[in-house]
């Protein structure tokens, strides 16, 4: 029996020792003369695993960078873990990346709740949390969270763009709003309100309706909005409800100017199920080239993307916009790190990320540029409106810049 106990002790000791981490000492963790370590979490499993392709595509792009000699002679060592879109797993994996793998920075961690879970931690540890993959507005808060930065136009930005267009083209608009009763919906609503200004908002908005994401339908909200006499419909709904809204408005013969948020602008998951005919005339805001849109077939950015996809990410779907998104943002990080020169301290990485000037990315709409400053951590703030012509989104008019008043 004593051998049994001693064996138990021995195996327990081995188990403990196996977890002991050798301490490493370096000036900037994750940076050597030949390597930059970059950490990422993505949902490769679980309910949001459709987004996992972004994490894979990022790795595929860094492979290309390394094949071409890396960044200032340093190869990118990209470490990505599955967090299944569950915040506790994100916390665990991010702590592993920061404390054990000793990455220099975190890049494109995906999801709003998941990034919220590590927001405080990253800023306490003073490790860059760069270009997070979520549209929430809170990532642009350099004063309180100087180590976190977003990437895509946030929901408030988009709301302000619609407001600018409405004020210019429909000065007598009667606006009806439908929004999801959570942070996402409220962000959009706030953007529209801010863009209109207090006086205009009071005058123009005739009705606001909300729904819960758990509601089965939004039919009654649409009927209420119609009865309010609104002639402009600001539709802040996720795909499932966007389909219902488009259909119901069409069925009851309500024909407002219908602004549909970018979240639900997908042809495949929203417009086709709702009916292409009923969708005709919808207006949304875009910032990227839609890769399924034939107008970009001969565009250099699209061609380069296609060549890269075929060579480095042959498993990736060529009609999945996420792969274009990943390509854009990976190029932006590469650009930022190049701009750092030989000073790859975490402070300088944030400083350079906060001083991007007119950076163009191949799959942004022509004219849209990345701009940041020490007080502006929202890289993309321009969008262009597009109208659905029954087949595709046709961009029209000028570029809107939400950073300008």
């Amino acid at each position, binding site marked *: *029996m004593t*051998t*049994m*106990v001693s064996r*138990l*002790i021995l195996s*327990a*000791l081995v188990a*403990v*020792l196996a*977890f*002991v*981490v050798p301490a490493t000492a370096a000036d900037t963790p994750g940076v050597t003369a030949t390597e930059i370590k970059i950490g990422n979490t993505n949902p*490769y*499993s*679980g*309910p949001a695993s459709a987004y996992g392709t972004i994490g894979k595509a990022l790795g595929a792009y860094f492979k290309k960078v390394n094949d071409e000699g890396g960044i200032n002679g340093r190869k990118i060592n990209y470490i*990505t*873990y*599955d967090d*299944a*879109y*569950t*915040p*506790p797993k994100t*916390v*665990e994996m991010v*702590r*592993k990346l920061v*404390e*054990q793998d000793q990455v220099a920075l975190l890049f494109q961690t995906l*999801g*709003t*709740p*998941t990034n*919220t*879970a590590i*927001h*405080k*931690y990253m800023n306490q540890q003073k490790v860059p949390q760069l270009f997070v993959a979520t549209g929430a507005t809170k990532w642009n808060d350099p004063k309180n969270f100087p180590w976190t930065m977003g990437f895509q136009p946030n929901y408030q930005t988009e709301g302000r763009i619609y407001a600018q267009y409405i004020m210019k083209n429909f000065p007598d608009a009667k606006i009806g709003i439908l929004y999801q*009763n*959570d*942070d*996402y919906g409220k962000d959009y609503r706030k953007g529209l309100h801010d863009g209109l200004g207090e006086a205009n908002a009071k005058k123009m908005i005739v009705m606001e309706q909300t729904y*819960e*994401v*758990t509601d089965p339908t939004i039919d009654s909200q649409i009927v209420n909005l119609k009865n309010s006499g609104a002639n402009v419909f600001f539709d802040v709904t996720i795909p499932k409800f966007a389909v219902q809204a488009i259909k119901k408005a069409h069925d009851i013969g309500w024909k407002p100017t219908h602004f549909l948020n970018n979240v639900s602008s997908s042809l495949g998951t929203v417009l086709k199920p709702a009916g292409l005919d009923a969708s005709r005339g919808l207006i949304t805001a875009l910032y990227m080239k839609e890769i399924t849109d034939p107008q970009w077939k001969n565009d250099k950015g699209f061609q380069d993307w296609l060549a890269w996809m075929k060579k480095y990410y042959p498993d990736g779907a060529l009609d999945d916009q996420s792969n274009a998104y990943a390509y854009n943002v990976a190029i932006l990080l590469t650009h930022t790190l190049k701009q750092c020169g030989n000073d790859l301290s975490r402070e300088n990485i944030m400083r350079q990320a906060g001083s991007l000037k007119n950076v163009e990315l191949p799959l942004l709409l022509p004219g849209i540029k990345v701009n940041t400053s020490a007080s502006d951590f929202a890289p993309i703030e321009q969008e262009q409106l597009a109208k659905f012509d029954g087949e595709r989104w046709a961009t029209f008019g000028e570029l809107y810049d939400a950073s300008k008043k």
Partner: protein
Amino acid sequence: MTPRARAVAVAVVLALAVALPFFVSNFRLFQFTQVAVYAIALLGLNMLTGYNGQISLGHGAFYALGAYTTAILIDQWSVPYPLTIVVAGILCLVAGFLFGIPALRLEGLYLALATFALALAIPQILKYFEHWTGGSQGIVLSKPNPPWGLKLSPDQWLYYFTLAILVVLFVLARNLLAGRTGRAIVAIRDNAIAAGAMGVNTALYKSLTFGVSAAYTGVAGALSALAIAFVAPDAFNVFLSITFLVGIVIGGLASISGAIFGALFIQFVPNWAQDISKAAPWAIYGIFLIGFMYIMPFGIAGAIRRVAARAARRGTAARA
């Protein structure tokens, strides 16, 4: 295993657990804190499923209830965190007991389905009470700092705090299950009618077991809220409940130590699976699962018991 050997083993494991913070990094300690949290949750589920024979696919719901109780009490009313754990436990005890009453009419698979519904519903319910729960954005908390000027990192403190609660709850569970009550609970599992004929109030015992089980899982959830310092509905999806069930089966049904083995499994094996293959981590996880069940059909605790019994037999044979 003889009682003496068992006592020695427990003492050794406990000594190792107490010494752990001096060996490992804060990150590893955080992982072991999660192991301790899972172990409490698994012990709770094991009382219900392993000892009492009621299958629950919905313990993630009680875990969530505990986590949100702590988060809301700290966030809205600045209640001291140790107190919130007690409140979470009591609330889950009541909730579990109340759920246990209608569950009396459901046996086996039907109960599994009813509890499964609970697991499915909880993320949506959490989003519904947005004013308190913060909706899909959840609630951000601060990690508690060590009290009394102890020279510990927050991770080390939380680890000891969790470990202390684990020890108390395990001792309580052992005393509960080893005595009269435990025999009644097991008798209901083995043959409810016979147990009733012997004078066991099966309805009361089943509901009570449900309540105590939920309380354990709720306390675990509350501790997890402190360890993660964040709660959100996405953390408590259906998969969590299924993970708990995997944990008790792998660890060993109707075994107290099994909860610890199961917790180690559900904490570390998915990570190892991911290290082996990024492309198909769940396939690797599945292979691990099947492998474990094939080699150790009674769970890890069952396998250890068997090996120990064989060693003891050999010992007596050698002496004879």
